């Protein structure tokens, strides 16, 4: 039994429920700005102009002040240039950055974890300026039309830019974002027929895409090479119609005996939209052995693996070999509390990017109306069961009967929540661990085997077609 003092690594859930000073005011400014994008900025109404003025006022004390003030003046009369729209996106991003910082401070207090400072930011390479300019022009048209104004002609304008960007690894970030965003918009055309809008989400995606069109905005992370033992905690999966990413959260113990670090390793692949669910693992498997190792409960030994100051391992199987068995729950109980967190890249200062590994036990589970929540030390902590992938054996039912949970602490729509990565639950009087990423390396589960075979067949059919049609 873990004691309730901080040394046990338990989370201070009470801190997560306490109001964050200034949060509501900042969110109100963001929301008002986000609503201006519903009608679009071509012919702003008085309420839209007022919201823009509020945005300018909110960043008045920052280095962005004069840039944003000018942008707001132009945008309020429907005369914003692309640069002005970029300034508006920057102001919104700065505001959410401040919100992120306040939330992250709260998370670090709740987990009792130290965090590395951000090294001086270096801009990324100034690449493919023409493509970034084309993306920005499309985003500017989108902001002018507004979500109510989207139609097939406007949305399909992103297609060519995305196709040209995707093959260039240096442009994968903006390309993947624009691709996922445009697919959503396309599915919602015409905007005039929509009854409601994903207001925060689309404003987030628009602003972030706008920021990424600024050459060098992605930054070039400072790298070092590390050697030591990697103890996986769990696998987080991300997916849109034409992309998938698996992110392994782990504790890294340097061989030189320096402090353990909380790290991530990511692998992503573009995909056809018909490869979904369990089928996505086979696209990732050949490029990174770690998810399979994590799924099998194994540690890995790293030799000179590149890592960023943010704690992102830039994985290469050449620098890794399979280690001894390592139970993720033992890692969570013993190694997680002492692991220091990485720095946060400037552009990742956004509440939606918060995903902090936590270990929970001694909680009660509530399930009302199908929604799950843990009660941790008397505090209610909602469970984000929607983020549990269908590509694994973890289910909301297993979470509902669990006694311990490794999860990612996230924040969305005004509150903290926990996304389960793995749980311990009792099956036939025995405690078993169920991992969301358990099928990364393959599985004997019959429906999953069938689904994976179906996806293999789908990929085979498409490759055969591609072989015939793309090279003729």
């Amino acid at each position, binding site marked *: 039994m873990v004691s309730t003092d901080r040394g046990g690594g338990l989370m201070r859930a009470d801190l997560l429920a306490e109001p964050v000073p200034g949060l509501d005011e900042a969110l109100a400014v963001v929301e008002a700005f986000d609503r201006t994008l519903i009608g679009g900025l071509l012919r702003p109404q008085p309420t839209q102009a007022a919201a823009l003025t509020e945005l300018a006022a909110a960043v008045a004390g920052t280095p962005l002040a004069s840039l944003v003030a000018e942008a707001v003046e132009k945008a309020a009369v429907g005369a914003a240039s692309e640069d002005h729209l970029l300034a508006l996106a920057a102001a919104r991003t700065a505001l959410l950055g401040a919100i992120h910082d306040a939330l992250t401070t709260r998370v670090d207090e709740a987990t009792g974890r130290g965090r590395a400072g951000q090294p001086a930011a270096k801009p990324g390479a100034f690449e493919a300026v023409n493509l970034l300019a084309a993306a920005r022009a499309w985003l500017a048209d989108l902001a002018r039309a507004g979500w109510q104004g989207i139609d*097939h002609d406007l949305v*399909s304008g992103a*297609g060519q830019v995305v*196709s040209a960007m*995707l*093959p260039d690894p240096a442009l*994968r*970030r903006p390309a993947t974002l624009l691709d*996922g965003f445009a*697919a*959503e918009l*396309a*599915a*919602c055309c015409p905007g005039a027929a*929509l009854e*409601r*809008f*994903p*207001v*925060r*989400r689309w404003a*987030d995606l628009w602003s972030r895409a706008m920021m990424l069109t600024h050459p060098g905005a992605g930054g070039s992370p400072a790298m070092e090479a590390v050697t030591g033992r990697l103890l996986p905690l769990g696998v987080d999966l*991300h*997916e849109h*119609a034409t992309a998938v990413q698996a*992110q392994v959260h782990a504790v890294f113990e340097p061989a030189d005996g320096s402090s353990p670090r909380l790290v991530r*390793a990511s692998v*992503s*692949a573009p995909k*056809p939209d*018909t*490869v*979904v*669910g369990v089928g996505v693992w086979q*696209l*990732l498997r050949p*490029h*990174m052995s770690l998810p399979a190792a994590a799924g099998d409960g194994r540690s890995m030994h790293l030799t000179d693996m590149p890592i960023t100051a943010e704690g*992102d391992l830039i994985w*290469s199987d050449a620098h890794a070999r399979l280690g001894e068995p390592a139970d993720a729950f033992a890692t969570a109980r013993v190694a997680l509390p002492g692991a220091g967190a990485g720095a946060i890249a400037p*552009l990742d200062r956004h*509440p*939606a*990017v918060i995903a902090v590994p936590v270990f929970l036990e001694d909680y009660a589970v509530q399930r009302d109306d199908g929604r799950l929540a843990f009660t941790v030390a008397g505090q209610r902590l909602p469970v984000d069961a929607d*983020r*549990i*992938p*269908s590509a694994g054996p973890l289910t909301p039912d297993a979470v509902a009967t669990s006694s311990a949970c490794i999860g990612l602490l996230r924040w*969305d*729509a*005004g509150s903290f929540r926990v996304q389960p990565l793995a749980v311990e639950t009792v099956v036939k009087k025995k405690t078993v661990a169920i991992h969301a990423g358990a099928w990364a390396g393959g599985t004997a589960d019959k429906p999953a085997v069938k689904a994976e075979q179906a*996806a293999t067949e*789908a990929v085979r*059919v*498409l*490759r055969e*077609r*591609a072989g015939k*049609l*793309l090279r003729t």
Partner: protein
Amino acid sequence: MFPDGDGKVWEASSTARVIPPARPRKLAKVPFVELADGRLQGVVSSGSDIGRVYVSSVATRGYSFACSTNNNRPCGGARGSFCKHIQALITEAVLQYGAERVARYLRVEVDAAAGAPAIITTMTATRPAQADGTAAAPVFSRFLRHLGYLELVADTTPLPEMQWFPPTGAAA
């Protein structure tokens, strides 16, 4: 769009679910179908020639339809009404996207539970006209673009933007 309990929370969520995920289906007969550009459009395999595909489409407005081979030969079956390729296309679209979404996209008023046959019958009952062949080239290039996704390499540099795209857990 995705149903949810609380509209306010959905509007304030960075990860609000906007479109349900595509459902897996067998691709041999209809390797590609999409709801895009104001059409239900896609590519249907020829039953006899492995090197040939039919490029088929139906417009959401008026249901005007077109079908031709990738070498621009008109489909013999698509005179007067939907050929078997267009019918296969609609059937597979219903498998991939669900009858409700397909019917809503095509603005066909049918009971979604009735599925593809009801959608096809309702559309053909309006006696749609044959469209000109101008859609074929863009549809075929959309298909090639779709195939191109398999040619792109995987990467181990993190994509922080994917935090906005949780897994499509609700897939059937």
